């Protein structure tokens, strides 16, 4: 049995009194590729955000690499890929600059980037197939390419665990494949993955276990379930808006 990487024990989470998850337990061990599936608003994103400490638990506990989340400080072991890149205030940033932020967890805030940092950034950009776009402003990239920038940023930190929030939602086919390839490389190197998805697409062969979140609890934990009903039709196309539980407003950066 490999070491547990993520341990969620009887977690409950609510937003302003409304329970999103109640009594959720989940263990992810080293080398696993776990997909968290579920309908929009089922709380699957909330679960991953709670694992990362971005959402407080109302009860229960989270442990990362066998350490209680509250005392966990080895953030360089985790690479996080959010749903999408924030627009920012319009100040341009190059692809390289965004990806280089992925090195901060390793080198700290005061040490200037060294040769190892630059090499890791180049390697990560090559892994997602964007080596030729390093000097371009991220705002000029397509949605799928921006998503690849985000996975490159996570990979640049050379993490042991990748946590991805709907990495392929609304992403073009080319980017999805580049994404799957980069992920495969990461898994082949012994990495652990927890990813939230609405549909798996080209990522499907990589998944070793699926967890289905439904009605605030875990409805399934095991092999990837077969799609049911009209979802199973080969030409079924998911069209869905983004989740409702993202804070947005003038003062949220």
């Amino acid at each position: 049995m490999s070491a547990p990487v993520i341990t969620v024990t009887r977690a409950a989470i609510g937003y302003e009194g409304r329970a999103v998850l109640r009594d959720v337990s989940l263990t992810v061990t080293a080398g696993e590729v776990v997909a968290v599936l579920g309908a929009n608003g089922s709380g699957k994103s909330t679960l991953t955000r709670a694992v990362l400490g971005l959402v407080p638990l109302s009860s229960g506990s989270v442990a990362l690499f066998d350490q209680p989340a509250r005392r966990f400080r080895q953030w360089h072991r985790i690479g996080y890929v959010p749903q999408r890149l924030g627009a920012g205030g319009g100040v341009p940033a190059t692809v390289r600059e965004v990806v280089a932020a992925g090195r901060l967890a390793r080198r700290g805030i005061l040490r200037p980037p060294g040769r190892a940092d630059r090499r890791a950034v180049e390697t990560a950009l090559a892994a997602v197939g964007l080596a030729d776009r390093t000097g371009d402003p991220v705002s000029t990239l397509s949605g799928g390419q921006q998503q690849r920038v985000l996975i490159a940023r996570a990979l640049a930190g050379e993490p042991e665990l990748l946590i991805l929030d709907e990495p392929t939602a609304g992403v073009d086919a080319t980017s999805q494949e580049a994404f799957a390839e980069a992920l495969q490389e990461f898994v082949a190197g012994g990495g652990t993955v927890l990813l939230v998805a609405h549909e798996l697409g080209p990522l499907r062969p990589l998944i070793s276990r699926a967890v289905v979140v439904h009605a605030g609890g875990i409805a399934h934990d095991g092999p990837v379930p077969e799609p049911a009903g009209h979802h199973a039709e080969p030409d079924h196309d998911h069209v869905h808006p983004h989740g409702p539980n993202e804070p947005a407003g003038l003062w949220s950066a």
Partner: protein
Amino acid sequence: MELFQYPYMQRALVGALVIGLAAPALGIYLVQRRLALIGDGVGHMALTGVGAGLLLNRSPVLAAVIVASLGAITVELVRARGRTSGDLALALLFYGGIAGGVMLVGLSDSTSASLNAYLFGSLSTISPTDLTTIVVLGAAILVTMLALRPALFAICHDEEYARVSGLPVRALNLLLAVATAVTVTIAMRAVGVLLISALMVVPVAAAQQVTRGFRSTMTAAMALGLFAAGSGVYVAANADTAPGASVVLMAIASFAVVALGGVGWRTLRRRRVAAAEPSAVEPHEVVLSRS
């Protein structure tokens, strides 16, 4: 140029140049996190500090640094909680700040001329002690903003990611808030609390019309800030106009020039690219027509 032989004009020029360099170096982070007008609000609050200083016969600049820092920290705490009611809290702070300032200055023995000096700046009355304060604090801001650029870029670009990277996000946010207060206070003497935000934001807005990355935007914004400060003081000295207003107008003029130049350059480039070769298009994801 003879005017610049007088020590007071030299002090005005040096003070303006330091602020012209430091304000955009801080301002770029504020613009990136969509808080472009925060400097204006903090300036309002600094005025209460000025009033308190004048009333108590203490250094108005020191009092303004303290009050503006407290105000900026309060704003940051409101922002971090992300409540919608935040903007009302900000309105209360800002207008409370300016009203408190006007009232306290009125209660002190100072004349309305000294209120004007803080509202619109008064570069030519900078004392050697004032200049030392401006240079020391300005250099501190500049060094901090440049040395912490990767970390500050990370928190302003994607705060959640920065938290997951284990960065001390709250400490860096508070640092940025205090740095804003300090910059506002030293810039107060040059351009006045009502025009401070312009020096933080306009050079950044101008630079990002033509730059591609964060680092190049920061460099270009600092260069434009330096130019606006230098040319503004020069114009003010020769045409006998208000230095603060002249500096800000030079900054806006440089924005207009850069923006127009950028549009022209892009049009030119687009024509050249279009003439050279058709750009590669990704294949369609759906079958558009069956034959």
